[in-house]
Each structure stands twice: as structure tokens, then as C-alpha cells.
């Protein structure tokens, strides 16, 4: 990811230009038209009156989805996908369809998981997975199992051609025992493309043109994957079967039902992990505590999960709260580091004596956006601009010395990083970045509040410039004021919506996505920043409700 690659100082700077930082950075600097980050520079075509969905490629299941599905289908909580190779990431998102294809390691991992999951299911849960009453013909039980289990795994009823191979393999196993027949069917289903890929587009028998409305089962699958990261439950499949999942209103009704389920919290966690690049916290060492790094980082991640849960699903939740809530969730480990009360067990929401304002001042995020031995104003500034405001920052030239200045007991971090803005060659870009990053100087590399640094007063004044939004631009004092401004910013809301869109649809935005993006942003804005409405809104876009026609012949 780009964010982490940034250089930090310019001690040995050679001649260079300020690479366009003085211009308004609304559009991504990339020469590639399809390569924008989660930008907001896309303009809608003149009319969105006819449905205009973006592309609908095959999506391989992510590891997150795979494990969720096994839990929901078979009650298997062993999380076998933890052993799968990681997804390739685009813009930090693992859901990208075009960057992810099968490889030998993944295919072998599928086989490993299928065999161990199937063995486990029949050994420990045969009666719940594939019940067969005494005296009933095992072949009949097998047929019933195939039509129920495979249909849920494939997210739709099987065609005859799809049922036949499973029947064959069941009969082969059934010759040994009923359990073996079931086991082999599970193995085959878990390695079938109808299971391993999200197939949103199945060709109609007749030639297609324009936007194609999704069928009920395809809609059910999109809903479940989008809001649960899993397969449809029986209620969704029933709605699909009975034709009650075809209109936008049907879809919205089901979306609200799904959002009320615990699994919707998982999708928020998975999205946020990628949006914020939280896996970078794993193994990250920060000076200032003797706690085991894994113990601390694991508590920090859980703390952030609690915070996000509250912002999305709490009674007072919403975009405003996401950026301004004073709450920090602490367990005993974190209370030891950050102050507050040790709750004894689990986490409690607390308001610490110092200023804390929402996501940007959560200990986990501040520790993530730090060097091991000092704060990282540049990383923090780039993060806010790129990830929160969708303002891509132009690059540093390769010739700069990117070593952060050494900690110096006689100076503050701000003083040591100051040369960015003093050297003319650097200042073009760094005035965009550092002005934001310096606003977090009250929080050290662990995200602890500090009144002073090296016994010197901390200067937490900052400034946002060239954001393309008048109410966002201007000086501010401290992270809380910055956060308050972000909480009011239409650009920041649009940016979050765009990030959700990229994550959900698993691809970089294309020109065809303009109408859908506009629908999503409009809905989110008009909801007053209701985050659950944002998630419902994903299901009300053209890209969700339709797919493009397949133009080439069968």
C-alpha cells in the first residue's frame, strides 16, 4: 500500500520539483485511467435514469468469507482459511477480483481444507449436518443432503448437470458407509467453482443487451456476501424462491434484516481492517512499554473493534460519532498503558481525562500510524488525506533521504521534522501533509496523551490546505478540532462511501460506476451520516441490483 511507503525527511535532498503539489489534488496522478485510488474526482455521466451497473467479474471467496461460510453451513469454527495464502490487495482491499486468481498453493489449500472439514463434519456432527433417520434408505438421505447442502453452498438450486457428479460421488462413498458418502459430497462441494467463486453473472439463454436485473438467488447471494460476508440463510433463499427478492424495496427490506444480525458486525470489522490497514499493527513494536507486543496489539485491535461497533451500531452511532466520540474501550492491559480504570474482565467504554475525538485518536490507530521510537507526522498526515479525505498526495522523489530524524532529547518531533516545510523543494508537498500530521502531536508513538515532549511544550497546531472544500481548509488546533471538521465534511463522507463501494464490489471504480457511486453518496449524505444507511445504500445501487449484459456470444 502506498501510505506506508512514504519518506520522511530530506536531509540529502537533490534538486527536485514539488511535483504538482501546489495544484489542487482532486484527481489521482496516475496516468492510468482505471487506476484511481478511492478518489472523488469521478463525474457522473449526464444521465443516470437508465440503470448503469459496473462490471460483475467472478470473485474468488476471500479467506474471511470462506471461514464464515463454513461456520454457517457446517458449524465448523476451525477457520481453515487462516492457512490459505493471502489475497493480493489493490488499494488495500483483498476483495479485488481482477488481482486474485487461483494458484497451486491456493488450490492445494482448498483440497486440504475440504478434506479436513468434511472428515470433521461427519465424525462429530453427522446427525445435524446430514440427518438420516433409522430405517430410511441411505440413498434417499444422500439425495436430500445433496439438494439441501449443495444448494446452500452454491447459493441456488442445482441444475441436473450439477447434481449428477455429487450423486455419483455420494454413491461411491455410500458403498463404504453413509458417513463416507456425505464426507465425499462435502469434499466435492467445497472444491467446486459454484462454491469457491461468487458467480454473479450466469448467461441467459437469449442474447443480452443493456443492464440485466439480477434474479432472486443472485440477489440473495449478493445481499449475504455484502452484509454478512457469508452465504444466504434460509429466509433469504425462501424469499428468492418465492419471487420476493426482485424489487429494490424487497432488497432493502432484507438488507435491514441482515444488518440487525451479529454477522453484520463482522463485515464492518473486515472492511475496517482493510480500510485502515490494521494488519500492519501485527508485530509492530512501539517504545514506551514493556508489555508483550502481541498482547498489547491484540488488545488494541479489540479496543478498536469495540469502538467501531459502537460507531456503526450503537444507539448514538453514525458518521459524526465515528469521528468525534470521546469513548475509548479499555481492558486491563490497555488501562495499564493509557490510564483509565482496569475493568477486571473484558473491555469497558471509558472517557479518559484528556481530549479524545473519535477514530483518529483511538490508541490503536495512533500506534499504527507511528514509528517504533517516535510519532510519525508524515504518515499520520498522509493517512488522513488519502484514506479519510480521498485526497491523493503526490510522491516524494526517490532521491530524498527518507530516514526519520533521530529522536533528540532537546527538541520536539515537530522541530525535528520542520525542515520539510522550511526547504523549498519539500514544502510544496509537505505543507499538505505535515500540517495535518502535526495536529496529532499530543499523542505519542503508543497513542498515549502527552502534555509535553522532552519537557518542552507540545505544539499541536495544524492546518488543512488544498482540500477542495472551503469548510475543511484552514488552521486548527489539535486532533479534536481536526476531527470535528472532518465529521462535518461532505468530502469525508463521500470518501468513506467510496471506500465501502470499492471493498464491496471488489474492483477499482470504472466509469460505469459513476451513477452507483453517486446514488450511494447521496443516500449517505441525506441520511445525515447514518452508517447503517450507508450499508443499506450499497444494496440500492445500480451495481448491486443489476449486472451488465454479456455481449459476446455463448
Amino acid at each position, binding site marked *: 500500500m502506498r501510505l506506508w511507503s512514504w519518506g520522511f525527511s530530506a536531509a540529502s535532498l537533490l534538486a527536485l520539483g514539488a511535483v504538482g503539489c501546489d495544484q489542487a489534488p482532486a484527481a489521482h496522478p496516475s496516468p492510468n485511467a482505471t487506476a484511481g485510488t478511492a478518489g472523488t474526482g469521478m463525474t457522473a455521466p449526464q444521465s443516470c435514469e437508465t440503470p448503469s451497473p459496473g462490471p460483475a467479474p467472478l470473485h474468488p471467496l476471500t479467506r474471511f468469507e470462506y471461514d464464515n461460510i463454513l461456520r454457517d453451513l457446517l458449524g465448523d469454527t476451525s477457520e481453515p482459511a487462516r492457512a490459505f495464502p493471502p489475497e493480493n490487495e*489493490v488499494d488495500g482491499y483483498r476483495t479485488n477480483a481482477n488481482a486474485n486468481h487461483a494458484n497451486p498453493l491456493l488450490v492445494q489449500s482448498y483440497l*486440504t481444507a475440504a478434506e479436513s472439514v468434511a472428515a470433521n463434519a461427519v465424525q462429530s456432527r453427522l446427525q445435524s449436518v446430514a440427518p438420516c433417520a433409522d430405517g430410511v434408505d441411505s440413498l434417499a438421505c444422500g439425495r436430500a443432503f445433496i439438494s439441501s447442502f449443495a444448494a446452500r453452498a452454491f447459493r441456488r438450486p442445482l441444475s441436473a448437470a450439477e447434481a449428477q457428479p455429487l450423486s455419483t460421488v455420494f454413491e461411491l462413498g455410500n458403498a463404504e458407509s453413509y458417513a463416507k458418502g456425505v464426507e*465425499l459430497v462435502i469434499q466435492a462441494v467445497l472444491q467446486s*467453482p459454484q462454491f469457491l467463486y461468487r458467480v454473479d453473472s450466469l448467461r441467459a439463454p437469449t442474447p443480452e443487451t443493456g443492464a440485466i436485473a439480477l434474479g432472486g438467488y443472485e440477489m440473495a447471494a449478493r445481499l449475504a456476501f455484502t452484509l454478512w460476508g457469508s452465504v444466504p440463510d434460509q429466509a433469504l433463499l425462501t424469499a428468492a424462491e418465492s419471487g420476493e427478492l426482485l424489487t429494490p424495496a424487497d432488497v432493502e427490506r432484507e438488507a435491514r434484516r441482515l444488518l440487525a444480525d451479529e454477522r453484520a458486525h463482522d463485515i464492518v470489522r473486515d472492511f475496517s481492517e482493510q480500510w485502515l490497514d490494521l494488519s500492519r499493527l501485527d508485530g509492530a513494536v512501539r517504545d514506551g512499554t514493556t508489555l508483550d507486543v502481541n498482547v498489547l496489539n491484540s488488545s488494541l485491535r479489540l479496543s478498536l473493534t469495540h469502538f467501531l461497533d459502537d460507531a456503526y451500531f450503537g444507539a448514538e452511532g453514525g458518521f459524526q460519532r465515528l469521528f468525534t466520540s470521546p469513548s475509548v474501550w479499555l481492558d486491563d492491559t490497555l488501562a495499564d498503558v493509557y490510564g483509565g480504570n482496569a475493568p477486571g474482565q473484558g473491555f469497558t467504554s471509558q472517557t479518559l481525562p484528556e481530549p479524545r475525538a473519535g477514530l483518529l485518536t483511538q490508541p490503536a490507530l495512533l500506534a499504527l500510524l507511528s514509528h517504533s521510537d517516535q510519532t510519525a507526522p508524515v504518515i499520520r498526515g498522509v493517512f488522513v488525506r488519502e484514506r479519510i479525505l480521498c485526497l491523493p498526495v503526490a510522491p516524494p*522523489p*526517490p532521491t530524498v533521504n527518507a*530516514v526519520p530524524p533521530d529522536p533528540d532529547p532537546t527538541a520536539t518531533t515537530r522541530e525535528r521534522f520542520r525542515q520539510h516545510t522550511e526547504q523549498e523543494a519539500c514544502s510544496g508537498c509537505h505543507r499538505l501533509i505535515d500540517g495535518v500530521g502535526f495536529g496529532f502531536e499530543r499523542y505519542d508513538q503508543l497513542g498515549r496523551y502527552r502534555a509535553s515532549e522532552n519537557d518542552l511544550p507540545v505544539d499541536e497546531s495544524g492546518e488543512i490546505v488544498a482540500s477542495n472544500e472551503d469548510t475543511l481548509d484552514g488552521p486548527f488546533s489539535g486532533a479534536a478540532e481536526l476531527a470535528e471538521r472532518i465529521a462535518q465534511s461532505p468530502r469525508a463522507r463521500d470518501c468513506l462511501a467510496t471506500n465501502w463501494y470499492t471493498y464491496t464490489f471488489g474492483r477499482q471504480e470504472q466509469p460505469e460506476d459513476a451513477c452507483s457511486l453517486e446514488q450511494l453518496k447521496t443516500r449517505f449524505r441525506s441520511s445525515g451520516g447514518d452508517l447503517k444507511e450507508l450499508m443499506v445504500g450499497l444494496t440500492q445501487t445500480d451495481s448491486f441490483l443489476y449486472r451488465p449484459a454479456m455481449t459476446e456470444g455463448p
Partner: protein
Amino acid sequence: MSARISRRNVLRAASGAVLALPLLPSLGTRAARAQAEAAPKRLVTMYTPNGVIHDGWWPTAVSSESEFQLSSSHEPLRPYKDRLLLLGGLEMKVAADGPGGPHQRGIGGLFTNMQLGEGVFVDGCGRTAGWANGVSIDQRVAAVIGAGSPVASLQLGVRATENDVQGRISYAAPGMPLPPLATPIDVYKRVFQNFLPPATTPDEDVAKRLLAQRRSVLDAVAGEFAALDTRLSTQDRQTLDAHLTLVRDVERRLSLGIGDCAKPAEPPVLDPASEADMPKVAELELDLLSLAFACDLTRVASFEISTALNRIRYPWVDSLGEGHALSHSGASDADAKAQLLSRQNWHSSLIARLFDRLAVVAEGEGSVLDNTLLFWGNEVSMGTTHTHDNMPFLLAGGTWAFRTGRYVQYTDSTNNRHGDLLVSILNAMGVEDTTFGDARYCTGPLSGLV
């Protein structure tokens, strides 16, 4: 190095060892078979990021090609000095332009000699690129010498966590990168786990039945692919065709079994992201590679230590700076330089560890090391410039193909191509191509090697 051990005796010796892994496995009759045939050749491609400190990489006191002192970076390889071939002055022309930034172009071209495609990955300088547009040399070689191996090839990674073009060194085909295994247990499972279904007995009839069942299951899976096929777009169909081909290939290789090679004890579970675990992850991955080579379970591997834009510290060699940042500071900063040199030294020590293990396994008249070639490269020459001239390239290991024990400096600008080096490596591995990757950056085998 001195007294080589027969494979059987190694097994006996190792059985009492207190290592996390036995030093070497049982090879049983496979050893006899292997010795009757020509010894297999093996290839390792190795990558470390962000260039090197040249003053401390290249040999010193050079009086001739074969008379020189190893630099501090290669000190751990002193016992293997006569097996090293240091190649100075080579230019990686393929990385000079094309899509992407210098780190991206470098890592993409290093083992493919192909430029990157256009794409969506953003580098540290805001430039974008896709995947490399060609097969990597390890995979080209694996397609020939690894076709009969139970494991086609191994991709090993140590904190190589950039899951985009900057974190991939191995390509099965243009635009088809292979992800690295992140921890020893992952390597262990890839090499040893699937040859029989889990929880089986060593009973041969049982094993045969289980393999037959697996085949039937995969036949059913193939039936599901066929049932879906006609209803997909052309592009989606190609995606699934490639997937099904892999299913069949995995099945075929798993049916080969691991012969008489004793399954080693499971390695400990280590954290792929952990700074504290990092040295052990690297060491045990290489130990498992030595087992896989010695057992002839695979003949090709790539080994990747972190990625270009890493922020990784190496406290075990007193390097508390962050990798990429240090490299930008480079030789002008004494402390950064010392840290980078100690990292280079550690990287060499990993090669020495692998060689120590390969050198003691007898094979034919020599050792497994005699039949293993390692090529160590980097995506840029040095972190301060990000250029691709005078690349820090090192060949090491077997002596069958190249005159080793030398430091060869290429000064003729018409004969300094990285692409030519790749052709020479291909030829050394028995692949008789005269070009590799982009023909514009390749004229044939590199002179001065044999």
C-alpha cells in the same frame, strides 16, 4: 563439509537430534534410485530488498578474478568461497522504464526479464503498474525439471507481506504471481501434509483407497466445472479453466507420494508478522527446503526476505532502523550504513545455513549442494539512487555449470545484461533456450561464466 554422510546414516544420526527439525530425513530406496540416475539439478532464486551498500558488498583486495577477500556482507559464506560467483557491473536494463516505480520495475523484472503491465498497484512514488508480464525463471525451470516432482516448486517468504506487485518474485505465467508461504508450518504443510489424507494409517491398501476416493471427488469437481462452463463469459471461463488445470495438477503430484522420505516433526507455529520470530521463520523455512531438496520432493524454490517498502527492524543484528528508510539514507550516514551491512551479513548467513545442510547429504559422488544453484538478486542497486546498474548479483552452490570461486567484473557496456545472466542460469539448469523474457534486453548466454 568434510565427511559426508550417507542418507541412511544421516537418518540414524538425526533421529537422536534435539533440533526442532531433524537435520535430514530418511530417503530410503529413493536414494538408491537417485544415485542410479543422473543427480537432479536444483535451483533457488533469492531476493532481498532495497539494494545494498556497495562499499561492503563487493570483494576487497582484488588481485585477480579468483584472488580477493570477501566483504563483510559475505563473511558467513567464507567456507563456501570456492562456490561463489560474484558478478559486478551487470545492468538490469529491463527495469529502466515501463510502468511502475523503480522498486516495482525492479522486482518485476528481476526474475522475469519482462516489464510490468499497466495496472492498479501504486508504488511509494505514486506511480502505478500491474504484474510482471512474464514467467519467472524459477517457474520456467520448474516446468522442465520439476514436472515429475511431488511439489512443483516452493515459494518461501519471510515477512514478505506486501500483497501486490512489490511482494511477488515468482510468476507462473504473465500476470500470474505465486504467493509465498509465510511460516515454517505453512511450508511443512505444503510439502508433507497432503500426500495422504489426514488421519490415515500407513497401511498401503488404506492409502490406495483414500487416493482413489480423492480422485473420485476431484472427478466430481471437474463435473461441476463443466456444468458451469457454458453459462459464463469468455473471461470468466478462462479463469475457471486455469483453476481446473491446477486441480488436476495438484492431484497428479499428490498421487506421486513422498516415497520413503520420513515426514519430519512439525515445526513450531510462528507468527509471520513478528519481529521476534523473524530469524526463526527464515531459518526453519530453509531447513524445510533442505529436507524437500534432499528427499527430492521439489527441485525449485524462491526465497523472499521482506519487501521493498518494509518498515522492518532487525534487532538481532542491532539494526533498529526501518528497512526502507535506512536504505534511503545509505552510505552517507555511518549508523544507517552499519545497520544495512549487518543486515546484508545476516542474509548471507541464511545461505550458509542452507548450504551447511545441503552439503552433508551425499548424492552420487558428491552432495546435494553440488547439484543446487542459488541466484541471489535485488530489485535495485542501492537505496539512495534506485538505479539498476551494477546490480548486486551473486551465484552460489554447485560448480557443474559455472567457474566459481570468482569475482567477475563486467565493464563492457555491450556485455553486461541481466537478461543474459538469466539465459545462462536457464542453460545451467538444462533448459536450452537462447533467450529469456524480453528479447530487447537479452542477447544469449552471458560471457565469462563458464
